[in-house]
Structures are given as C-alpha cells and as structure tokens.
C-alpha cells in the first residue's frame, strides 16, 4: 500500500444505499429455484420414516412406472463416495464417521435420504416418492444425551463407542479444586438449550447440469461455501476439481445452515451427470424443518467460585452437544464443543478454568453451524453464573459484571487466547445508562406495586470474528479456513470488477465491499462491481461464516485494491518520468502532486491494455492484481452488551418484550445501516431461541417440527424494536479496522431474555436456566406450581 493514497473515507463509514436492492425489490433477483434450463428435470428424495434401522430392502421398481418419472437412483445405483468430515485429533478425542450421500445399509434419522426420484416436474417427482417401498429392520433409537451415554446403549455409529464423537478436556488449571474448596461463594447452573433450525426462508436447493463444451459439471446451489462444495462433489463423483463448477446465485439467507455440504446437492449433481440432463432439487419446507442441518441442542453443567466481593475465581464446566446423526463437512461434530470449550470465559477476567467438551451422536437430524455457534449457549452459562452469584452475595447484577470484565488490553486469557482491545466496561455502562434514562427501573418498581411482573436482564459478551488460519489450525481442523483471496481488475473503460472468496446471503457484500474498493481507488462506486460465488471466477475461498466476510474478505479486497492503485500510480509516474510517490489518485484519475498533469483511469487502462508498448519493461501489461489476507494471531473480538425488559403475564405465562437495547462494538463499521440490520436480525433469532423455537422428538424419533404450525418462528408481534448504540474500537489486525458483525445479536439475546425473565420471577424464588422458556413454565412459576425444568 506504499504508493497509493490511504482511503479518504468518502464511503466507508456511511450508510450507502444497498446496490443489491433494486433487483431484489423489483422481483429480478435470481435465486436457485428461479433457474430454469432447457430439458430440466426435477428431483425429490425418498426419505427414511424411521429414526434408526437397518435397511432390509429398498424397492424402487414401481417408482419408474409413475407417470412423469424419468429415473430413480439408490445408493447402489450411484456408487458415490461418502462425505467424511475430519479433525486431526487422536481417536480418543475424535471419531470420524462417514455420511453416505444416500443411505446404504442403515438409516440414522427420520428424513435421511434413501433414493432420489427424478421426474418431469416436482409434482410428478412427489408422486414417485409414494411408490417407493422401503423395508426397515428397526433398531432402538438413541434420542437423548442420557440414552446415548447409558451402559449398553445402541450405537448410532459402530465405530463411536458410547455414541461419543468428540471428547476433549482442556485448560485444567492446576489447583482449581482447592480454589473451589476455599471460595466463600460457589454457584452452579445446569442449562439446556433447545434444538433449533437456522431456518433461512429460502430452503436449500441445487440445479446441476453437465456442460459438454467445458467438460464440466455445473452446480448452481445456494451455499455459503462454494469451493468446499466443489471439493466434496469432485471427490464423491470422482471427477477432477476443475471438472466441477459451483455457482451461487442470490441466496435467501443461510445463517450457517448453508455453510456445510449437504448430501442432496451432491445426489442431484450425480443424477444430472448420469442422465446428462439438468436436474433441479428444491427442498420443501417439511424437509427443511425436519431433515436439514439443525443446531443448538446443548447441555452445560457449570460451577463457578467467587470471592466475597463478587470476583470470579474459577470456572469448571462440562459441555455436551447433541450433534445428531452425522458429523458435518467441513467443520465436523467438533464445531460446537470446541468453540464452547475454548471461548467460554468470554469478557471476564477468569484466573482458573477447567472444561470438558463432548459431542454425542443421536438418531436425530444432523446439526451444523448456526449463527453464533455455541456462543449463545456458553454466554448464557456465564451470565447465569454471574446472576446467581450476585443474588447470593446481594450485589447488583450490573455491578458484579463491572467488577469482572476485562479492562486492560491486550488481555491473555486463561484459555490461552489473547483478546484485542474492546469496550467491555464502556458498553456495559452505556447499556445500563440507556435503560435507566428511559426510566425502566422506575417502571419496574411501579409495576411491582400493581402486582405486575417486569424484569430487566443483561448479557455481556465478546465474539471472536477474525478467525484466521492460525485460530482454526489450533482447533485441529483438517480443512483449515482462514485466508481470503481477492482479485481486482480494471478494464479499458476504467471500470473495476473485483472478487471475494466470501459469499453473501443477505449481508450486503455488493455494497460494503464496493465501498472499500471505491474509497481505496478514489473511484465512483458505480464503476465498481463485485463478483462472488463462482468457483471458476474466484481463485479460492472459504465462503461466509464466523463473521469473516468484512474482517478477512474485506481486508483482502482492500489490499488488492491498494495494489491496483499502486500499479495505476506506477504507470502514470512512468508517463511523466517521476517517482510513483509523486502521484496521487483522486476522483478517478492519477494526478501529479503540485502539477497540472492528470491521467484518467481510462487513459491509464488504455495504455495498460491497448498500447502496452508504452509501458516500461518492469510493468506488466494489464490491470489485474490479486492479494491475500490472513490473521496470524488469535483473531479479533467484537463485543456488546445487551439489555432486555420483559413483562410476564400471569394469566397466560406469555413473555412480552417491552424494550431491547444493544450496545455493540464491531470496530470500524463499513456501513452502519448494514451493521444495525445485522444486529436487529441476530437479536430476533436470539429471541426466537430464547422464547419460541424448538424441534423436539417423540419416543420413536419422529420430529415435532414439520411445518410452521408446529415450529413457532416469531413475527413482528413478538420481536420488539431494538435501540442500538455504537461504540468503535478499531481493529489493529484487519486492513479495514472492522471486526465482524454478523452473529452478535444471536449471541447476546438468549442470556439477556433469560436474565430478564428471572428478574421478573425474583419474587417467586424460581430461577429458570433452560430455553426456550415456554409460557407453561412461566405460568407454573408465577402460580406457585413446581417447575418443569427439573424433570426435563
């Protein structure tokens, strides 16, 4: 970046209007189901109706006779390789399991795909499903952590003893037991969180076809990780990677569910390859609810020791994550227990720590990442421990946090992680002040006098967002995400095309990343255009997850733009016979400092491409540059404090949210409106987990959630307006000063809501530690009936 000017900040930091909006608002977006190819066929899956069984026989002969059906394939027909997610840990810590693309000998959850039916349209494909005859030799299903660990429990995977896929014990501080023995205050929590669906409104889907001319299998699919889908497709289908092209159109949300490789898109691709005809698969909502990747079902037993002033002395935690039937690719079943184990201490100065994290496999739909990944759960644990200690020690809930948050940076935690500067105390103070200034404490007291139940709850957290290769390598992932590559290219008209290896699914990349490039090149944003989501166009990428797009992808974009700026300066300098340092870029042109000489970008590009003989020998023709970016330390941490005010209704047990305040610090906000959108959307999903959404299973392993009548997604009735305050602690480790902003809302909300409900329940003496908090639970608490939690 030596020669090109530093961004003059014209667009970064401003609420630039979204460039993706016009097409989406006009109905001209292109989502995967909008793609139609000549001769296209439609696929649906025969799925298991039982949770655990040997497949006795799969007879699909009658399917072929159904009008409109063109073909049907079972695992035997397609002979595909399995999807195997790996961690580089010893067998005592991680057991890899194979996920066949179509079930072969055994089924492990209701909804597992067994055969793919291909027909002239989706209606006929569904007709075909009904003609499939599958015989099962049923096995007892394993449906809970307790059942999975029980002596003599049936095994979901023969290779995973005690149904344990991951079992890691980390950070056992020497002498920790003595600290607990001597501490004046020890509190415990036992928290459980419900199994949730990330639930993008656009279900999963793919359109695959063989391109004879390119000798390529082209797979249009809505995925957050196009390059990893390509890798799996090429391995399962035994093709070179160059013979697979994954293209991602507009995506109707993902939230983590689309950042793992699904079996259905591989099966649809295999069918297209066999039939040499385009095949479309669009998941219906029933399958999306019950058989796509779920998340969040976790159980924590934790205790914490405090001194008499409320300072935390030690934390001892046992984490169990119910990962369902398969380990997801590429993250594996380690994603949740390893995240929780490493990062549970959060924003607090914790001197002693011990944790065991386990992933258990059960006969339920497999889980994958979901916005926040374990952080909503462990933040809930920490925040419940502090609330409980505050009660025990008769301290104010905000004051006990104030005494414990990290205030000096960089801070090296007991978990071995170095935290970069944040605003932990400032955000807590500002959040509390905001709630006080709106008079909620007075309203609470007045309501109590009338016999109403208003509660105020807080949560404090930080979230690592700058996961570079180093941070993921510590987790011993065999696919180590981290870096990103960007190419920036200028054409002869002076217009710029640039790429990112990240993948937008609602986060406004086309706008925010263009803001970065436009500033860096002092160019009108209208002249700048992003390309993403095409494995033939993008050298490589790890897609979008862990709030990495702006931190890592945006940094690569800025570096590449700066490199192009350097080249523009160098060409102009060579024309004027001056040093590149004497050239500056402003308003779409190179200008010689303290002189009248100007070369527009069009003029420079004209030289670079059309009259390359004018270039000096040391400058290559063309205006295309690439840059990579990685974070080589422990990453960067966004932080926030959330406050929630609730009222409990004694008659119905309903929890009504009266106010929600969020103080967030994601470093430099490239586009504050986009950041606020991410906060609000995340908080809505966090509230959904706290109060509404849960997939449960009956005794046979049949999932409860097969439609929106059974799975309560909150509407504008249930989600309150959110007041957002911004703090800005610029990040030293990213090129943009930004930290990630995608997940925080989801992380902070469950704990804030739970604490608010518990505050409202204070007069009853009941404390709740499980989510979702059902009206029945609240009703029982308010009306003096025994709690349901102890029995669950």
């Amino acid at each position, binding site marked *: 970046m030596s020669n090109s000017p530093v961004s003059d900040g014209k667009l970064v930091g401003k609420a630039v209007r979204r460039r993706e*909006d016009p097409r989406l608002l006009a109905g001209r977006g292109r*989502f995967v189901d909008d793609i139609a190819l000549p001769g296209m066929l439609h696929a649906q899956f025969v799925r298991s109706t039982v949770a655990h069984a040997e497949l006795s026989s799969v007879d699909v002969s009658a399917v072929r006779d159904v009008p409109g059906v063109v073909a049907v394939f079972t695992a035997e027909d397609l002979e595909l390789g399995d999807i195997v997610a790996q961690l580089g840990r010893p067998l005592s810590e991680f057991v890899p399991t194979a996920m066949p693309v179509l079930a072969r000998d055994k089924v492990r959850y209701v909804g597992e795909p067994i055969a793919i039916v291909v027909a002239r349209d989706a209606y006929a494909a569904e007709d075909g499903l009904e003609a499939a005859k599958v015989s099962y030799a049923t096995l007892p299903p394993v449906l809970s952590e307790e059942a999975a660990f029980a002596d003599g429990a049936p095994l979901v995977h023969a290779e995973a003893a005690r149904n344990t896929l991951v079992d890691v014990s980390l950070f056992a501080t020497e002498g920790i037991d003595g600290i607990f023995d001597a501490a004046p205050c020890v509190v415990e929590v036992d928290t459980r969180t419900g199994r949730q669906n990330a639930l993008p*409104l656009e*279900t999963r889907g793919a359109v695959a076809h063989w391109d004879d001319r390119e000798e390529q299998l082209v797979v249009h699919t809505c995925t957050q990780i196009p390059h990893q889908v390509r890798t799996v497709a090429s391995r399962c289908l035994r093709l070179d990677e160059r013979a697979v092209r994954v293209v991602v159109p507009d995506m109707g949300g993902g939230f983590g569910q689309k950042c793992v490789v699904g079996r259905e898109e591989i099966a649809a691709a295999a069918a297209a390859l066999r039939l040499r005809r385009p095949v479309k698969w669009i998941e219906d909502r029933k399958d999306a609810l019950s058989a796509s990747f779920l998340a969040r079902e976790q159980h924590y037993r934790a205790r914490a020791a405090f001194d008499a002033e409320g300072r935390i002395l030690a934390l001892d935690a046992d984490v169990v994550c119910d990962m369902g039937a398969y380990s997801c690719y590429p993250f594996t079943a380690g994603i949740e227990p390893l995240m929780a184990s490493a990062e549970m201490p959060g924003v607090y100065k914790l001197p002693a720590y011990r944790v065991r994290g386990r992933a258990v496999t059960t006969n339920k739909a497999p889980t994958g990442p979901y916005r926040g990944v374990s952080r909503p759960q462990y933040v809930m644990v920490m925040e419940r421990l502090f609330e409980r200690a505050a009660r025990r020690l008769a301290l104010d809930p905000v004051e006990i946090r104030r005494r414990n948050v990290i205030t000096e940076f960089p801070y090296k935690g007991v978990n071995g992680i170095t935290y970069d500067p944040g605003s932990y105390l400032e955000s807590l103070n500002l959040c509390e002040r905001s709630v006080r200034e709106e008079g909620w404490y007075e309203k609470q007291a007045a309501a109590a006098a009338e016999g109403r139940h208003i509660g105020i709850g807080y949560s404090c957290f930080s979230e690592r967002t700058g996961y570079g290769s180093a941070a993921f390598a510590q987790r011993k992932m065999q696919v180590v995400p981290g870096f990103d590559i960007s190419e920036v290219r200028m054409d002869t008209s002076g217009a710029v095309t640039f790429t990112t290896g990240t993948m937008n699914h*609602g986060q406004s990349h086309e706008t925010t990343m263009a803001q970065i490039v436009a500033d860096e090149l002092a160019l009108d944003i209208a002249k700048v255009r992003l390309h993403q989501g095409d494995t033939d166009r993008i050298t490589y990428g790890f897609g979008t997850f862990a709030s990495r797009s702006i931190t890592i992808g945006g940094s690569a974009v800025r570096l590449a733009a700066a490199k192009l700026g350097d080249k523009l300066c160098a060409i102009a300098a060579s024309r004027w016979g001056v040093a590149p340092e004497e050239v500056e870029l402003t308003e779409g042109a190179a200008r010689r400092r303290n002189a009248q000489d100007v070369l527009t970008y069009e003029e420079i590009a004209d030289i670079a491409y059309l009259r390359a003989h004018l270039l000096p020998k040391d400058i290559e023709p063309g205006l295309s540059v690439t840059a990579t970016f990685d974070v080589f330390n422990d990453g960067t941490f966004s932080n926030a404090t959330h406050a929630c005010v609730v009222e409990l209704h004694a008659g119905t047990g309903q929890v009504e949210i009266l106010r929600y305040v969020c103080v967030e610090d994601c470093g430099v906000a490239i586009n504050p409106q986009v950041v606020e959108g991410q906060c609000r959307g995340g908080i809505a999903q966090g509230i959904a987990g706290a109060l509404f959404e849960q997939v449960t299973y009956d005794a046979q392993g049949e999932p409860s959630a097969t439609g929106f009548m059974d799975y309560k*997604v909150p*509407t504008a009735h249930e989600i309150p307006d959110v007041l957002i305050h911004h703090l800005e602690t610029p990040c030293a480790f990213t090129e943009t000063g930004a930290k990630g902003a995608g997940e925080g809302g989801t992380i902070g909300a469950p704990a804030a809501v739970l604490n608010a409900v518990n505050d409202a329940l204070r007069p009853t003496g009941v404390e709740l530690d499980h989510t979702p908090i059902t009206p029945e639970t609240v009703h029982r608490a308010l009306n003096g009936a025994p709690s349901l939690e102890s029995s669950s």
Partner: protein
Amino acid sequence: MNTDPVVTHPDLQLITLDVNGERHDVITEPRRTLVDVLRHELRLTGTHVGCEHGICGACTVLVDERPVRACLMFAAQAEGSSIRTVESLSEDGGGELNDLQRAFSEHHALQCGFCTPGFLMLAEGFLAERPDATKEEIREVVASNLCRCTGYQTIVEAIDACATTRRRTCATPCDSPAGKEH
C-alpha cells in the same frame, strides 16, 4: 416445467390468467398452485415460495387488489381475477422503483431479499385499502409474513414512512388507491 406437448392429456386444462394487466393462456394441471404457475409457467419468478402452507407469506400476490397466499390457491381458481405480482410495482417495466420499494431500500427493510416481494405485495394491498393506517396497524399486518433477516423493525418503518409520504403528497383526498406520487 411441463414440456410434454399433450393438449389432449386428461390431466391438463387450458386456463386464462390476467397477470399485471396482461392476458396469459396456460395449459396446466389443475393441481398446480397459482405460485407455481406464476413462477414456472409464466416465468414471473419475483414471487417466492417459502413454506407452501400459507404461513410465511413469501408468495403473497394481489388478487383483485387484495393480498393472498399464492401457494394456497390453485391457478385455475384465479381465472377471471386480476392478479398483480411484485413485477408490477416498478414503473416503466422495471426501471424505476416505486415509492414503496424505495422506502424499503431507504430503511434497509431487506437483507437477503427472499421474503421481500411478499412483504411488498402485502403492504401494497394493505395501504391501498387503509391509506390512513397507524404504525401499530402496520405492525399488525407485517406480522402476517415471516422475515428471518431484519427483525421486522425496518419493514414496519419503511411501510409507515411510505404511507406517511403518500398522505402528505395527497393533502387533498387522494383518488389514486395505489397512491403513486403525483
């Protein structure tokens, strides 16, 4: 897409749909839903399918100017009605966004944009009927549809801002139900 050229097929029928002011003759199975015919036969893919059981509202279109779930209606049932989809909102064939669409953009009322056509048509139909709707009434109506990205606040604000502007520009009683700026 049904590509079989079998007009005499017993499962096929000819229906006529009036969509965005244009007449379409469609040969289709009677079991096909309105949203599938709009999307896959007429290639009006702006209307989206989110749940196929009438809850999420992503498929909301106007039938005789009233918002309906196009996944709960067979295409054949829409014969004789006037249907409007999101493609009808933009002026001069999609070039210029109308005031409601612009309000959505100004208020960041969309992120992934998948549910957006449904919310736009819901709001378009509602505001035509209730131009004086309060913000609370708008929130009630917004609660008809699901959005997974925005937390709804900005959708409510966008519709409210659009309604307010329409009222301001129609200081005298406004006879344009769509309330387009004039």
